[in-house]
């Protein structure tokens, strides 16, 4: 079986105002050395998914069901303690805002050393050396000096590199990057992404990149999973998603994506409206209130929840529009606009 496999994962949070279905029946697989990009607006449930995998979703209140298989181990049922031992060692995570994600009172070095010594019974000295190596590998100049600096003394990019160094310090087999570049400015983004690509190659880890920005995953990912309202609404290879996207929402994402490789077009096509409430999800297709093509489904969108169906070669789409209709719309209405320049 594959290295990481999610089967019908559901993470629900009961609150005063009702049940929040952050993740609602998500399934996917991921192999070593491969990269999966999970794309969606904030609140689409992508971050909760990642936290769910690490068992960091607010344990007490959350209701989690389904299965998470990591390298042949089932995690949902596993004891918290066991999952903890896997954290950092087998699976590590890179967080969005490195400034708030690192403890302000400890030096970067200390925090990496701590991470390393949790899983490796070595002396501080050894761990420190390791930390310096790691910092060096993520391209921080004079790591032997910077190792003793505090997070606030780093630049944003440096901080993210340090974060990565910390995440990789125990060379995990699964690395999850949650919005690794959103906090950074564009040029630095590129560097960090390159860095992650390289590192992943060296470590041969499975990588999940979570972002709201297709651009980020464009070059990096092998597969891409588009989430909306806690569900997967389109899944496919990077090529599928960029060349033959079939879901209106994906089209929207593509439309609102500034492409580094193309002339910036004035004709971005933002998605109208705002993400759905996770408490009372719109009836039928969660996206229908914002969908330009909703009326073309003849009312079905409002009525029934669409299935996630395979169109071809593992390319899955959750939409009521018939396949040909989708293809047609993409080819004739969306694509030209995107490429027009």
């Amino acid at each position, binding site marked *: 079986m594959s290295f990481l496999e999610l089967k019908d994962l559901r993470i629900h949070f009961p609150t005063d105002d009702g049940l929040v279905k952050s993740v609602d029946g998500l399934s996917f697989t991921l192999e070593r050395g491969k990269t999966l990009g999970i794309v969606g607006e904030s609140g689409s449930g992508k971050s909760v998914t990642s*936290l769910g995998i*690490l068992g*960091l979703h607010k344990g007490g209140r959350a209701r989690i069901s389904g299965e998470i298989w990591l390298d042949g181990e089932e995690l949902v049922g596993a004891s918290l303690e066991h999952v*903890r*031992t*896997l*954290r*950092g*060692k087998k699976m*590590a*995570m890179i*967080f969005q*805002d490195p400034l*708030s*994600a*690192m*403890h*302000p*009172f400890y030096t970067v070095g200390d925090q990496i050393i*701590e*991470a390393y010594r*949790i*899983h490796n019974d070595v002396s501080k000295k050894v761990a420190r050396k390791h930390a310096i190596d790691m910092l060096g590998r993520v391209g921080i100049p004079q790591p032997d000096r910077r190792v003793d600096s*505090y997070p*606030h003394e780093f630049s944003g990019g440096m901080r993210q590199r340090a974060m990565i160094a*910390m*995440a990789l310090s125990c060379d995990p087999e699964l690395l999850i990057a949650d919005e690794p570049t959103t906090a950074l400015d564009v040029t630095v983004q590129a560097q960090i992404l390159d860095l992650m690509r390289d590192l992943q190659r060296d470590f041969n880890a499975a990588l999940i990149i979570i972002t709201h920005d297709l651009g980020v995953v464009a070059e990096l990912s092998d597969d891409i999973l588009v989430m909306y309202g806690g569900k997967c609404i389109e899944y496919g290879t990077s090529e599928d998603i960029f060349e033959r996207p079939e879901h209106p929402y994906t089209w929207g994402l593509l439309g609102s994506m500034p492409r580094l490789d193309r002339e910036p077009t004035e004709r971005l096509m933002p998605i109208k409206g705002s993400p759905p409430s996770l408490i009372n999800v719109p009836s039928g297709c969660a996206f229908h209130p914002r969908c330009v093509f909703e009326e073309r489904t003849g009312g079905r969108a409002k009525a029934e929840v669409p299935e996630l169906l395979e169109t071809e070669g593992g390319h899955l789409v959750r939409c009521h529009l018939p396949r040909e209709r989708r293809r047609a719309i993409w080819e004739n209405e969306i694509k030209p606009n995107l490429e027009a320049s």
Partner: protein
Amino acid sequence: MVTYIIRRLIWAVVMLTIVSIATFAIFFLVPRLAGATSESLAARYVGRTASAEQVKIAAEKLGFNDPLVVQYGRFAKGIVAGADYDYGPGVEHCPAPCFGYSFLTRLPVWPDLLNRLPVTISLAIGAAVIWVIAGVATGVLSALKRGSLFDRAAMGVALAGVSLPIFFTGIVSLVVFSYGNPFRITAPGGSFTPFEENPAMWAYNLILPWITLAFLYAAGYARLTRAGMLETMNEDYIRTARAKGLNERAVVVKHGLRGALTPILTIFGLDLGLLLGGAVLTESTYSLPGMGKYAIDAILAQDLPKVMGVTLVAAFFVVFANLIVDLLYAVVDPRVRLG
């Protein structure tokens, strides 16, 4: 760093000067506004049987007729340079810091203060140890078990704690544990045994005041710690720590508490500073011969030199505590830059 300390030191001195002026004003100006004359002030020095002109002479000699500025100058000079005092057979130099001589006992104030200080320090430190441990521990537990029965109970008690006047809890504790109690758990103050003399007696005499005082503060600190913990435990870096696979205890102590305690440190410094200046109510309730009791007695007896002395020393502690806290803060929180 150095420049920073120097700047703070200067500021501290300025503060003390202002406080001293204010104190002086209150005690030498207000009475005059209230109709006291330099004679009536001097009358306290020569006793009630003195004749009119004896009082006049004394008033002159004590310089009560000089303008207040001059009098303040003399007072300030006494503190920094010392002063001379006619104690009868001869004139004697009262070395700096000289807060003058008590109206009533005719003895210099400074030795009195030195003599009272150990009591207040014992009281304050002892209580502080108890309340920090109790308060912080409770606060952390409540925060971790937020909404649990323990949390609600603890916070209930804490709120009651901050709502009880210490002179009430003090008296009740005395009645319950001390007065006419077959097993007198403690001596109800009045009696203080220096630590170096007999640690057991020292503790025995202080245990009740300690607990009463500590209870009051522990309550406050529990509330503060809880709030602080709730905030820090929601910080991203806590999630990071967990993501590293750090076990929960380490997460709470090393990452959570560390963050939550910093603001508490500040408050602790100030509280301690204020207490060292005299736990007025506690010492009065238990009639412990400390700075606070000294201040009250002096005020009621209108023994101005004593009051001036004790007020300034009290202020000194607060200012000093401020200084320490600022410096410590810079140490604990690397983000604070000095200079």
